């Protein structure tokens, strides 16, 4: 799928602003960003529910802008599942085949196969209103996949599920994608979800793409301060403090798990940089603890440490203590800041 300088304006507001993007066959690609960043609009442009005001969209080399949704080889899993309430689960799943006039015996067989794949065998006779949220989500998935599209669009499909179910579905979705081998384009605002499931992802902000890359690239080498803040915890250091640490006042970032906490005045090994400050806040998260440290000078850094051999009482007592933070220089990344 290729976006070439695609824009979608609503009056003065540009929901999608000059976006160019290539998505490869068979990829699990995520569109990540906060609400209103344009990621859902892009998805709708691919599906055909909306027209771009500028630019072109190609699917397998074919320009699709004038094609209605039913002529595109693309299927969508909607955020609210959009199951047809007056039809049974089986009829919902079979809908696309019914429209294509697939003969009945094959239709029934394929519906059974599909229900088995999403682990809903035997529920074909039920109505959507009789299913749980997780079950409805699988029906929506089955209904889309049964048409064997070359691209599947998913619009925040797991948003309504509770945490455990969501994590389980993430694993299942990824497994299905790898088994079926088609391209998944996945919209989410949850950066953890995007990092877990994607082969590659694009970070959206206010209609534009801030960065495209693999999860590791985006996390380890964030391109802009927005990406730093949105993917993972933001640790932006600039100005005098930056000069003291790094030798130049340009803004840089370092990931919180890379920072070590030591006593003030502790020796600093070669290749590491350091700064001193006072622990302002401690958040105990079970497996690890998050410290917010107010640096001498200005700024704060967030540090996470695994609770290897400390208890909750130990870590909570750390509040207010003065500490020296140190980390390898190689973890410092310069970031472009928005004007």
């Amino acid at each position, binding site marked *: 799928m290729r976006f070439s300088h695609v824009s979608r304006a609503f009056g003065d507001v540009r929901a999608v602003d000059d976006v160019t993007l290539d998505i490869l066959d068979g990829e699990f690609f995520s569109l990540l960003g906060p609400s209103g960043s344009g990621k859902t609009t892009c998805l709708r442009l691919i599906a055909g529910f909306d027209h771009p005001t500028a630019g072109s969209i190609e699917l397998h080399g074919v320009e699709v802008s004038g*094609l209605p949704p039913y*002529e595109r*080889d693309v299927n969508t899993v909607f955020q609210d599942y959009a199951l047809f309430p007056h039809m049974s689960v089986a009829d919902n799943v079979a809908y696309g085949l019914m*429209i*294509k*006039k697939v003969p009945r015996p094959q239709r029934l067989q394929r519906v059974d196969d599909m229900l088995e794949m999403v682990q809903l065998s035997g529920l074909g006779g039920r109505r959507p209103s009789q299913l749980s949220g997780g079950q409805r989500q699988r029906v929506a998935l089955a209904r889309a996949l049964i048409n064997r599209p070359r691209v599947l669009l998913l619009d925040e499909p797991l948003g309504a599920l509770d945490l455990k179910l969501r994590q389980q579905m993430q694993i299942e979705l990824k497994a299905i994608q790898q088994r079926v081998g088609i391209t998944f384009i996945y919209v989410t605002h949850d950066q953890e979800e995007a990092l877990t499931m994607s082969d590659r992802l694009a970070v959206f902000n206010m209609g534009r793409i801030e960065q495209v890359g693999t999860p590791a690239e985006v996390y380890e080498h964030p391109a802009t301060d927005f990406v730093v803040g949105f993917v993972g915890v933001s640790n932006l250091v600039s100005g005098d403090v930056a000069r003291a640490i790094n030798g130049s006042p340009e803004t840089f970032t370092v990931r919180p798990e890379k920072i070590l906490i030591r006593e003030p005045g502790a020796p600093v090994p070669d290749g590491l940089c350091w700064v001193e400050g006072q622990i302002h806040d401690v958040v105990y998260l079970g497996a690890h603890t998050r410290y917010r440290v107010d640096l001498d000078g200005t700024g704060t850094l967030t540090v996470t440490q695994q609770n290897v051999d400390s208890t909750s009482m130990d870590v909570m007592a750390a509040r207010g203590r003065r500490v020296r933070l140190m980390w390898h220089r190689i973890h410092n990344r310069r970031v472009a800041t928005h004007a």
Partner: protein
Amino acid sequence: MNAAAASPGRRLSTFFYQRPTLALILLLAPPLLWLGVVYLGSLFSLVVQSFFSLDGFTGQVVRRFTLATYKDLFAPANLDIVIRTASMAAAVTVAAAVAAFPVAYYMARYASDRIKALLYLGILLPLWSSYLVRVYSWKLILAKEGIINWGLAQLRLDGALEWMLALPVIGGPSLSVSSLGMFVVFLYVWLPYMILPIEAALERVPTSFIEASGDLGARPRETFRLVILPLAFPGIIAGSIFTFSLTLGDFIVPYVLGNSALFIGQAVLAHQGTAGNIPLAAAFTVVPMAIMAVYLIGAKKAGAFDAL
């Protein structure tokens, strides 16, 4: 890709997909043509006609702009009709508001959900029954030999009734041919239209307002006067729009229960009929339109449209 061949239905659907404005125009055209052209057009032609006049000699409508017809409207006989109708409308409106308020108040404040549903049904039932039949029923009830007279006679109150019927404006030969009778029937047919908006407005008064008023020292009567009544007022106005407008235009009730003193509705019917004086009929029709327009603007300012 789709195995289904590109049938004419699909091609047409794709055609409209690429031209959404055209699709919209086609969707809107039939209803718009009907309502816009037929209905609005006829309303417009009606107002235009009121500026024409009827030639007394030939009996033909003279299609030239003139205010003579409107001047006719101000002739004493015609002005009488307007005043008579407007007064009746006002009287009915006030009475309806007074009669409707207790019921609406009970429904909104005290009735449990089940009772409220029953009351709703009880009020809507007469509304859903045929309007003409309900008017007709009163002819039976108010007839000289009917139940009202029989009841009053039983209570030895028939003297009082005779006295009332002898009064100049509201009286008449019998109850079923009198202004008093018309008043009762108008009240009867429009009452549900007044109860419902008032009930809706009262329901929207949060109980916390009433509690706060009591908490601040007001006695129940003061709370009613200073808090509840003003908040219910938009509902009263909304209901009054119905009662006023419906009375202004009605000709059935005066026909069934009235005498030779005409109401606006009857005047319209009479003039456009055999007399063929469409301009005067149109001018008469403009009167309720104008009155209602002024009333609606005032009602909008008073916030009545939130209560509808």
